[in-house]
């Protein structure tokens, strides 16, 4: 499909800006494994502090890159499947808000005024522009979504009896989840934290801010993941040379995500004091519910791939696996997606450990946690973003991919790196190694009283894996920017591969409408979260003034000075 130049440029900017920032994000990823392994015993390197770098790594990789990509991929998906371009003014406004917000937050982080990590837990205080910047980034993504909703409603009026394309359904569900969950973090940031960081209100309820953050924080991971799921269902079977085993399974999975992505955030707060055990247990069980759509996806995609392998002449029980086009540079996207799926098997299983209520005591806030989520967000999510960003850039600019052979091996190299890295971190976590800690200064410094020799091997594995991941990242940057800078050889278009469906399925109206699902979503959400919020309001006995990360004494607000 042909897209007009302004829309093409908007999408390309939405790919270029975050990938440019990702160079900073990945650099700090490498630096962290170096600090943590005790290779350097310093609080900062090249004028950037460890915790400042950790903040940059988290915010850029997990919020900026993922949000920009979801919007860029959403524009392309909606336009391609509904054959209607997004509105130029809305898309432009969305782009400006997102870029403006990102620049504000980036400034605050690079100046060292917001070294509070990407969770920005109060009462640690960041510069107000950090909060405002992230809020604008989020609001910018809403604007794009509202425009897609209007395109979709118009399309649906003309196509009442036609199933909404699965990719469009997935995109709309994903951004509905995103819109609802970000309302809580927008409230946290705009109503509670900005006035407090400006000194207009003296104190905040710490438990409330944490609970509002995690209302958003776990749904966030599905917001990262669903674009990858859309690719698994609608693109991957085609790339493998087969068909999608069941489209209906995809619809069911997406609607289950709509219901259960948000009311499980308390499973990040099992150690929090102000929330009752009943709510924690309830949300733990709901988390097992949200594992079901992932099981469904695993089966459906595996069945689709088996079909593809057999079509390519496979015999016997497992031979189909080896017939798939792993190293075919013409379908390099297959390599990116399949590696993500392999990593996600381990990411999903370790996630079940985290969600399991009292079992969480073993690993909460230890290095196990980053070990786990690098198998998810740095697995299927990140690899899908890398592969698709190259695919879209190449198509939308009409340029050939720079160094296609290198591009084909990037996901394999990355996967080897992540597996080693996560093994090290999860092993360390089981031995009590804390996450988010500059271990090189104390715990991995033989001169310190706190030196812990058990964590040498685990952090060394982290270093080895992290080094391989960094190398894969650099190769990706060479391919991505190389493609951007090469000469145009074809007409710019957007043409996603589309998987045909293996079973012919009747349209089932309930799986092609939003209203009843939205009502059910609201009901579950209220039942799961009203008691949690009430607990934080009732049990947090004292509010907290702001603190800078560098100073044990609170920041005295202007109100108290008077």
């Amino acid at each position: 499909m042909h897209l007009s130049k302004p829309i093409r440029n908007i999408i390309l900017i939405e790919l270029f800006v975050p990938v440019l920032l990702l160079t900073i994000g990945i650099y700090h990823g490498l630096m962290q494994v170096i600090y943590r392994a005790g290779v350097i015993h310093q609080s900062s390197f090249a004028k950037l502090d460890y915790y400042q770098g950790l903040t940059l790594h988290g915010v850029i990789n997990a919020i900026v890159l993922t949000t920009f990509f979801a919007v860029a991929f959403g524009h392309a998906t909606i336009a391609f499947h509904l054959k209607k371009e997004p509105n130029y003014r809305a898309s432009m406004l969305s782009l400006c808000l997102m870029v403006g917000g990102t620049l504000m937050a980036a400034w605050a982080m690079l100046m060292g005024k917001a070294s509070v990590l990407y969770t920005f837990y109060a009462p640690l205080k960041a510069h107000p522009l950090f909060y405002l910047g992230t809020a604008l980034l989020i609001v910018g993504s809403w604007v794009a979504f509202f425009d897609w909703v209007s395109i979709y409603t118009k399309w649906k009026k003309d196509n009442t009896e036609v199933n909404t394309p699965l990719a469009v359904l997935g995109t709309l569900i994903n951004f509905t989840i995103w819109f609802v969950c970000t309302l809580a973090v927008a409230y946290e940031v705009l109503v509670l934290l900005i006035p407090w960081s400006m000194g207009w209100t003296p104190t905040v309820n710490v438990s409330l801010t944490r609970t509002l953050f995690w209302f958003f924080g776990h749904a966030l991971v599905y917001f990262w993941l669903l674009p990858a799921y859309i690719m698994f269902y609608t693109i991957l079977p085609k790339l493998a040379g087969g068909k999608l085993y069941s489209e209906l399974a995809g619809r069911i999975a997406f609607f289950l995500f709509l219901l259960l992505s948000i009311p499980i955030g308390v499973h990040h707060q099992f150690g929090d004091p102000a929330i009752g055990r009943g709510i924690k247990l309830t949300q733990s069980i709901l988390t097992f519910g949200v594992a079901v759509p992932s099981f469904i996806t695993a089966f459906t995609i595996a069945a689709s791939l088996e079909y593809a392998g057999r079509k390519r002449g496979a015999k016997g029980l497992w031979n189909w696996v080896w017939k798939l086009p792993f190293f075919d540079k013409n379908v390099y996207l297959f390599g990116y997606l399949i590696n993500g799926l392999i990593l996600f098997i381990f990411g999903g299983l370790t996630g079940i450990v985290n969600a399991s209520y009292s079992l969480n005591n073993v690993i909460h806030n230890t290095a196990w946690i980053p070990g786990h989520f690098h198998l998810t967000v740095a697995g299927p999510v990140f690899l899908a973003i890398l592969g698709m960003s190259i695919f879209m850039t190449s198509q939308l600019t009409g340029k050939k991919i720079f160094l296609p052979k290198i591009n084909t091996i990037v996901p394999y190299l990355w996967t080897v790196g992540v597996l080693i890295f996560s093994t090290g971190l999860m092993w360390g976590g089981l031995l009590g190694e804390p996450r988010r800690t500059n271990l090189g200064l104390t715990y991995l410094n033989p001169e310190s009283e706190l030196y812990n020799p058990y964590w040498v091997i685990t952090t060394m594995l982290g270093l080895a894996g992290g080094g391989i991941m960094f190398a894969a990242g650099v190769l990706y940057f060479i391919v991505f920017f190389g493609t951007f800078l090469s000469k145009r050889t074809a007409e710019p278009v957007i043409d996603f591969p589309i998987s045909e469906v293996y079973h012919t399925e009747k349209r089932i109206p309930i799986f092609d409408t939003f209203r009843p699902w939205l009502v059910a979503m609201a009901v579950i959400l209220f039942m799961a979260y009203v008691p949690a919020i009430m607990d934080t309001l009732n049990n947090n006995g004292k509010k907290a003034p702001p603190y800078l990360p560098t100073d044990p004494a609170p920041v005295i607000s202007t109100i108290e000075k008077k």
Partner: protein
Amino acid sequence: MLDKFERTVIGVALLVSALFIFCLFYAMGAKKGNVTECLPYDKSYEDARVSQLDKNTYQVFYVARMWNFEPSVVYIPVGSEVDFFVTSKDVVHGFEISEKNVNLMGVQGAVAKTTVKFDKPGVYKVTCHEFCGTGHQNMQAEVIVNYPSK
């Protein structure tokens, strides 16, 4: 509708989830594994102290601050049962005793509580595992188990 294989898979997925949930309740019931208690807060929790309830029962009230725990060293006889209470006087802190699967958050204005039995002598490290500012990596305390029993 969904075909036979797909229905089987959804059934299996639900069964596996049910098994996991059963394990979770089993751990709670038979193994007494649980998350922190949710207690009403009052100001007395901000006094760091150790108190002995009877021969083998202790209560330790920890106060976490940037960047240390108070009390920083606690002596406990072997075989004691200890209630740990944790609160914070400033930012959010973590409270982890890895060998005993103690894992709590220290939050200003709230108090976390768990109970542990120390059967084996040793030095148990209490590590802050939540980022709490530039001195976070220095924040560790000790529970020393093997106080000469009388």
